[in-house]
């Protein structure tokens, strides 16, 4: 009864535009530092959100206040002061742009650094790009072409306005607000992100790509991504990040949710290159990301990630293999250099019968960095004939870097087959010398050896992305022999 009443109230307010406005002195496009219910109301109002979403945010905030930042990762960092962060910043450009020509040259330069110019991307045409620059989308392309197929690919704010029923149906179903400290925070304050829906039986004809970029100093980034692949559909989604040099720590706490309905397939690839800080790690991005997908019957989710940036990385793209015969994959290359720290891996939760998962993780540690693989393979009692194969390799570039592996396996069904292989090796001086003797210089030698080591994972990336990722690996390890 109480719930019915509450729903009714919710419905009533949802219909109306938000009346209460936000009345304090916030005039700029940037919220003052700090987090409170008022700030959340401000964000929600700025984004002209329906009441249900505001309530959802406020509930998440209430939960977050009761939670503690996790201490279990193998990470050592100064915990951010969440009251010193500004939770909303709109970019200087206000309007949606009609063509790529109108995009800020500064943004273009960042893209160029990654090796792919906008023009090239348009020409290559396989790629539709949705830019997120400081929380609000500034350019979207190929939308019409996708629309013909019924594919929705837009910013999260737009999706909330244009497709509220889809967003409301799936938002928070894979990563509940109370899942963890960072997902709760994200749910309370997320400002934008991407939304993607592939209708039944549609095979998305191009790679969908989003480039994220932190722009304004002192602004946390709380992206929210939701990808829904309806029955029998297929989509390949690319996400790439780069951030310009910063003097203070920047917090990044994104949430990505993937829903693969029956017989659907989602391939999600990430190249992450947030600013890692200087040699001592000062000024680098803190990256606390929750990524998870749910697989229904005979569906497949494949995560591929190339992680080279951030001062601190905390990230476990996971699959809940709920449907029978569903498949989860995780391919990862994580590079840490200088003072970078990464605690990354995956979780494969097997619920359905005949579910399969594969984990290939390649860690590379250079400088004084620490690189940890943390993985959970959980076979529940309902998951008859489940299978998992895990391979976790670590490559050390120096004597002062560290590689750590924390594999957890829980098997509650006796028919399960679980395999785990792990290796740790130091980059061979013999290998390097062999290359040098053939006239290959030291930087290129390392690049060759490291790319060879990571090949199994890089091969999973779409072609253009793989090339970019290879460059990134080489750049990340420049001058790291020791």
């Amino acid at each position, binding site marked *: 009864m109480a719930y019915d009443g509450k729903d009714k109230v919710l419905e009533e307010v949802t219909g109306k535009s938000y009346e209460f406005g936000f009345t304090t002195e916030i005039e700029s496009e940037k919220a003052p530092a700090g987090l409170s219910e008022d700030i959340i109301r401000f964000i929600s109002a700025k984004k002209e959100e329906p009441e249900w979403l505001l309530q959802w945010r406020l509930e998440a905030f209430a939960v977050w206040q009761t939670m503690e930042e996790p201490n279990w990762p193998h990470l050592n960092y100064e915990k951010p002061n969440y009251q010193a962060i500004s939770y909303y910043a709109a970019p200087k450009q206000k309007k949606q742009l009609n063509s790529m020509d109108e995009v800020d040259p500064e943004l273009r330069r960042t893209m160029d650094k990654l090796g792919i110019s906008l023009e090239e991307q348009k020409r290559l045409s396989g790629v539709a790009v949705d830019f997120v620059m400081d929380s609000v989308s500034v350019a979207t392309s190929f939308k019409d072409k996708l629309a013909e197929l019924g594919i929705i690919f837009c910013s999260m704010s737009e999706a909330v306005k244009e497709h509220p029923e889809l967003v409301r149906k799936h938002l928070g179903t894979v990563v509940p607000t109370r899942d963890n400290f960072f997902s709760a925070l994200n749910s309370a304050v997320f400002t934008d992100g991407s939304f993607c829906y592939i209708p039944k039986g549609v095979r998305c004809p191009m790679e969908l790509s989003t480039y994220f970029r932190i722009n304004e100093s002192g602004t946390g980034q709380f992206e929210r991504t939701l990808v829904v692949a309806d029955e029998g559909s297929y989509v390949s989604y690319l996400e790439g990040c780069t951030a310009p040099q910063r003097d203070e720590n920047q917090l990044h706490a994104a949430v990505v949710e993937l829903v693969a309905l029956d017989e659907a397939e989602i391939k999600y690839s990430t190249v992450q290159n947030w600013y890692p800080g200087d040699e001592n790690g000062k000024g680098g991005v803190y990256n606390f990301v929750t990524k998870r997908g749910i697989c229904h019957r005979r569906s497949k989710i494949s995560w591929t990630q190339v992680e080279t940036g951030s001062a601190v990385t905390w990230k476990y793209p996971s699959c809940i293999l709920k449907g029978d015969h569903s498949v989860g994959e995780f391919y990862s290359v994580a590079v840490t250099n200088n003072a970078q720290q990464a605690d990354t891996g995956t979780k494969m939760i097997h619920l359905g019968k005949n579910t399969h998962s594969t984990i290939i993780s390649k860690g590379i540690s250079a400088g004084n960095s620490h690189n940890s693989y943390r993985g959970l393979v959980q076979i529940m009692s309902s998951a008859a004939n489940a299978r998992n194969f895990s391979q976790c390799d670590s490559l050390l570039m120096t004597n002062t870097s560290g590689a750590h592996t924390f594999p957890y396996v829980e098997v509650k069904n006796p028919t399960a087959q679980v395999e785990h292989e792990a290796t740790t090796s130091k980059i*061979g001086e*013999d*290998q390097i*010398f*062999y*290359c*040098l*003797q*053939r*006239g*290959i*210089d*030291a930087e*290129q030698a390392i690049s*060759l*050896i490291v*790319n*060879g*080591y*990571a*090949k*199994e994972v890089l091969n999973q990336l779409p072609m253009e992305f793989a090339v970019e990722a290879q460059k990134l690996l080489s750049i990340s390890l420049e001058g790291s022999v020791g």
Partner: protein
Amino acid sequence: MLKINELKASVEEASILKGLSLTINPGEVHAIMGPNGSGKSTLASVLAGREEYEIEGGSVDFDGADLLEMDATERARAGLFLAFQYPVEIPGVSNINFMRAAVNGKREHEGREPIKGKAFLDMVKEKAQLVELDGRLRNRSVNEGFSGGEKKRNEIFQMAMLEPKFAILDETDSGLDIDALRIVSEGVNAMRSPERSFLVITHYQRLLDYIVPDFVHVLVDGRIVRSGGKDLAFELEEKGYDWIKEDIVA
């Protein structure tokens, strides 16, 4: 081509080369023989520029340049090649890509454009025939899962690709059966030319039946103690190294 003068080198404070002198002219094939631990492989490593070795004295002139002042990559690009005794495996890097990087490194040094795809593949095909290296081995990761013989053939293939001025073969015959030995030797012989010199390091006279040297040197305790023509190798085979050692003492 190469002029080594009173070269002294040590590793981990153990003195290995103790004043070695050797002159190799263009077109010549020199063989170095000697008992285990005499410094043969150290000589190869020092000439190729391995950094673990400390140069304690002497000089090496390579085509008018001070070899010891160059790093390993520069030496390779200037035309020095080492066929490794134990070729190294590089997982995930195809033989072809590895060679392309090497060939382009050399071309860059010579101020030339990177090689075009078609020209490169034609070159690979031609050079691979020299040592009967089939397509499968060309596309596999560098030396990964190769048999001992395949690894050595791959070394000679790489040498043919890079067309060095001066090549060191470090116990290329070790671990080879008679057929592989023939293939490898034929590859080397095909590359002999008036402009190219070889330093063949070996334990056994057997290799020298196939690659016939102009000069044979005997290395004992970090010094060349005897030099001669190819007959010296036969004499060694017959009498063993002890004969030389006794000779020195006497």
